C-alpha cells in the first residue's frame, strides 16, 4: 500500500548549522520536518521508500547508474561527525528491483554502497518513532547525461504500481530541491520564482507538467534534483500538493511538501 508521499529539502546546512545560515529560517524548515515525522507516525508506516540523487558519494565515474536500488540488509553513510545506519526493507527492495525490471526498467542494484547525505539529512529529521526500515532509490542528477524528467516520471509511475500492490504500508519520499547551484557562480542566486511557479502548479495537481520539462531547463533553473520529484509525481498522478514550507535561503529554495496518494 502507498499511504503517504512527501518531498523534503536535504541541504546539509540544515544539519550542520554553520554560522552562515539564517537561524530562524533553518528552524522553520526543521518545524516542517517535524510535521512530516508526525504524519509518518500517524500513517503507521511499515517502510519508507526514499528517492534521492547521490552526490557522487556511492557512485563515482567508475560506474554511473541512471536509476539504482539499494537491496542490502542495511546501508550506512557518514558526513563529518554525523554517522547513520539504517536497516533496508529487503523484501520490498527486492520486489522493486524484480518488478521494475519486469516492467522494462534496466535497474542497477547494489547490496553494499555508501549512503549519501541526500538520503540521511531528511531521515535525520523525519524518521518516525519507532523507526522503520527504508528502501533507498537513486536517480542520477549530478553526472550528465542524466535520465530525462519524463523517464523519471515513468519510473515513478511503475514504482507507484509496485508499492500499491505490496502488503506493507509504505510512504514514498523524494529528497532534494528546490533551486540551488552548488559549486557554480550562481550559488548565491537561485531561481526562487521558478520554484514558486512550480509549487503553484503542484498545489493545483498539475504534477505531470514536471514530466514535460527538459533536462536543459532543470540545469538552467538550478533544479537538476527535481528528477526525484518527477519520480515521486509519477506515482501520484494528479494529487494536489500541500506545501508545508517554502523557505528561500541565500543559496537554496528549501521546500517541504506532502501529497495524499
Amino acid at each position, binding site marked *: 500500500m502507498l499511504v503517504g508521499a512527501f518531498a523534503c529539502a536535504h541541504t546539509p546546512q540544515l544539519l550542520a548549522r554553520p554560522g552562515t545560515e539564517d537561524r530562524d529560517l533553518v528552524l522553520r524548515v526543521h518545524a516542517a520536518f517535524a510535521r512530516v515525522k508526525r504524519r509518518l507516525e500517524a500513517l503507521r508506516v511499515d517502510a519508507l521508500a526514499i528517492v534521492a540523487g547521490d552526490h557522487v*558519494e556511492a557512485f563515482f565515474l567508475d560506474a554511473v547508474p541512471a536509476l539504482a536500488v539499494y537491496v542490502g540488509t542495511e546501508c550506512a553513510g*557518514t558526513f563529518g561527525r554525523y554517522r547513520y545506519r539504517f536497516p533496508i526493507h529487503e523484501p520490498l527492495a527486492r520486489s522493486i528491483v524484480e518488478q521494475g525490471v519486469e516492467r522494462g526498467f534496466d535497474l542497477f542494484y547494489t547490496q553494499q554502497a555508501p549512503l549519501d547525505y541526500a538520503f540521511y539529512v531528511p531521515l535525520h529529521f523525519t524518521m518516525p518513532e519507532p523507526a522503520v526500515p527504508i528502501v533507498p532509490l537513486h536517480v542520477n542528477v*549530478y*553526472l550528465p547525461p542524466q535520465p530525462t524528467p519524463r523517464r523519471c516520471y515513468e519510473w515513478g509511475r511503475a514504482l507507484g504500481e509496485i508499492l500499491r500492490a505490496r502488503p506493507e504500508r509504505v510512504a514514498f519520499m523524494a529528497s532534494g530541491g528546490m533551486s540551488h547551484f552548488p*559549486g557554480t557562480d550562481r550559488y548565491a542566486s537561485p531561481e526562487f520564482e521558478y520554484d514558486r511557479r512550480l509549487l503553484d502548479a503542484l498545489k493545483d495537481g498539475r504534477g505531470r507538467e514536471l514530466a514535460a520539462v527538459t533536462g536543459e531547463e532543470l540545469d538552467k533553473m538550478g533544479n537538476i534534483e527535481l528528477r526525484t520529484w518527477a519520480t515521486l509525481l509519477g506515482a501520484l498522478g494528479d494529487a494536489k500538493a500541500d506545501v508545508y514550507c517554502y523557505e528561500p535561503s541565500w543559496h537554496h529554495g528549501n521546500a517541504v511538501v506532502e501529497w495524499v496518494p
Partner: protein
Amino acid sequence: MNDQPHYRFPPASAYRLNRCLFALKSDDGFRARFVKDARAAMGELGLDAADAAALLRGDRDALLARGAHPYLVFMADLRLRMEREPVSFEFF
C-alpha cells in the same frame, strides 16, 4: 559561456583530477594524508603538474577549465575546511 550548462559531462581527460576531488570529499584517510602532505597525496593518484598546481592554489576557475566537476570542487573545499575548522558548525 552563459549558454553552457552548469553541470557538464566530465571529460575523461579529467578522470584523475576528479578522482582526487572525490577522495578529498569522501575518503577521510586520503583527506588526512592530503592535509599532512598534499603533494605526496596527489602523487598517489597520479595527478599531473598542472592539475596539482591548480588544486594547491585552490583555483576553482582553473580546476573547472581542466574538467573538474563543480560539485566536487565545492565539496572537496568544504570538507577540507571542516577538517581544519571543526568548530565552525552547529552555531544554533
